[in-house]
C-alpha cells in the first residue's frame, strides 16, 4: 500500500502511460457496476441537482479522461440517469464533450478546482453544446458535500483512502486551486 501511495503522491499519476497501464486491465463491467451504484446513491440524495439541468435532461455528455484508457458517458435524465464507461476506440456521438486529466476532473467534482481556471490553462477543454456543459457544471457545483466524497464513501474504506491519495497528488502538482 505504501508503494501505491507514493506512486500517487509523487505526481506520477500525471504520466499518462503509467496510469493507462495501471487501469487498462480493469474490466469495464466492474467499472460500470461502480459507476451505476454511485450514480443511484448520489441521485437519491441530491435530486435537486436536476433542477439546474432543465432543458438538458436528455442530452448526452462525453467525459474524456485523457490519461485513462476509457471515457465516461453521462445522461442526466432524472427518471433514468445513465453513467457508464466506454473504451476510447468505441465511437460515440455526444451532445457535449468535456475533456481533461483524471486529477483535473476529480478536482472539479471534489469542489477544489475552478472549472474556468482549468479552462484558462487548457487543462480542461469543452466542445459541443456549451450551454448544457455550463448547466452541468453549475448543477454539480451546487452540492454542499463533494461529489467525490459521496462517491468514495460508498466504497469505504478503500474509496476514501484512494480519494485522500488523489487529493495529496493534486496538491503536489501544478493544477489551479
Amino acid at each position, binding site marked *: 500500500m505504501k508503494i501505491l501511495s507514493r506512486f500517487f503522491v509523487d505526481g506520477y499519476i500525471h504520466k499518462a502511460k503509467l496510469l493507462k497501464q495501471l487501469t487498462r486491465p480493469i474490466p469495464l463491467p466492474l467499472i460500470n457496476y461502480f459507476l451505476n451504484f454511485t450514480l443511484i446513491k448520489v441521485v437519491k440524495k441530491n435530486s435537486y441537482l436536476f433542477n439546474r439541468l432543465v432543458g438538458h435532461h436528455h442530452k448526452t455528455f462525453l467525459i474524456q479522461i485523457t490519461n485513462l484508457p476509457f471515457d465516461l458517458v453521462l445522461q442526466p435524465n432524472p427518471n433514468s440517469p445513465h453513467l457508464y464507461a466506454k473504451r476510447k476506440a468505441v465511437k460515440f456521438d455526444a451532445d457535449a464533450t468535456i475533456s481533461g486529466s483524471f486529477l483535473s476532473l476529480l478536482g472539479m467534482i471534489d469542489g477544489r478546482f*475552478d472549472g474556468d481556471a482549468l479552462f*484558462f490553462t487548457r487543462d480542461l*477543454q469543452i466542445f459541443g453544446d*456549451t*450551454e448544457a456543459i455550463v*448547466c452541468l457544471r453549475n448543477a454539480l*457545483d451546487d452540492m454542499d458535500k463533494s461529489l467525490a466524497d459521496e462517491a468514495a464513501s460508498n466504497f469505504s474504506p478503500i474509496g476514501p483512502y484512494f480519494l485522500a491519495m488523489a487529493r495529496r497528488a493534486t496538491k503536489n502538482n501544478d493544477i*489551479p486551486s
Partner: protein
Amino acid sequence: MTSPHKPELVCPAGTPASLRVAVDSGADAVYCGLQNATNARNFPGLNLTPYELEKSIEYAHLNGTKVLIALNTFPPAGQFSLWSDAVDLAHSLNADAIIVADIGVANYAKSKYPDLRLHLSVQAGAPSIEAIKFYTEEFDVKRVVLPRILTIPEIKSLKQEISCEIECFIFGNHGLMAEGRCSLTNYATGLSTNMDGVCSPANFVNYRVDADQSLHTELNGFTIDCFSCTQNPGYPTICKGRYHVAHREDSYYAFEEPLSLNLASLLPDLISAGVDAFKIEGRQRSKAYTQSVVSSWRKAIDTALDHGAINMDHLLSLTEGNKQTLGAYETKRWR
C-alpha cells in the same frame, strides 16, 4: 495609514452552495440574483429560485452576513413586472439591499419600499459627482458601485463630494469600459447583456480545436479569438477578442485583453481613499473560486487594516488567461 472605517467585503454567489461558502469564508455581504433576466449574470443553470433565496438569506443573516440582490438590468418596454416582482420579493425576504441600474426600477423600489436600501449598480455607469448626486437625491441611493474607469485620486476626490457610500471592484472581470451600454453581444446574437442579462450566451458559444491544437472560440459564427497551444484562453466575449484592423498587419486585442482585475497591491491606497466596500466579481465561477478568493481577500483586508504586507500572488491561477491588471485604478493608460 489611518483608517476610520473597516471596508465591507462584498462577494459573489451563483448558487446556494457558493453563497454558504462565501459566508463561511468571511464575506461581509454576498450578492446574488434570481433565475431570470433581472440580473446581469442570467446564465444557464445559475442563480437562485425564490425558495433558495429565502433559505440563503436566513443562512447569511444567522451568520451575520448581508445579502444584496442584483436587479441590475434594464427592463424592456412592456416587461417591467418581472423587475417589480423581483423588488417585491427582495423586500419580502428581508434582503439587505437591492442593486439597481434602471431609473424605473429605482423609482419603483424607492416609492413602494422607502425602507429598502438601494445600491447603484456598476451597470448604471455613474462615474461623476453630478450623476451620483442625481441618484442619491432622486432615489435615496445609499451606495454607488463605481465603474472601473477611475484612478484612486479621482475616487478619493469623488468620495469627498458625495453623500453616499462607494463600492469598488477589486478582483475579477475587467470588462469593457462602457458598462450598461455595451451592445456587442446584442449585435452578434440578438440577445442583450443589459436587458436579457447575458453576455455571450452559452448556447451561441462554440469551441473548436485544429489539428495543430489551436483553440478557436466562436460566438454565433463570429470567430472571437484563436489561441495557439501555448496561449491561455479567456472568456468568449467579443470585447476580449482579437481582430484584424486596418492599421495593423496582425490581429490584436482591439478593445480589451483577456485578463482579470487584481488590486491587491493598491488595497492600502483604496482604503485610504475612503472606499466603503470592496467587490469581488464572479457569480458565474465555482465555489472553489469563491472559497479561495473570498478567504484571501478577507485576510488581505484585515492585514491591510493592521498595516501588514499583502501577498496575493496565488490568485493569478484564477485570473482570466492567467493575466492580471491594475486597470484604470493605477493609470488611465493601463494598456
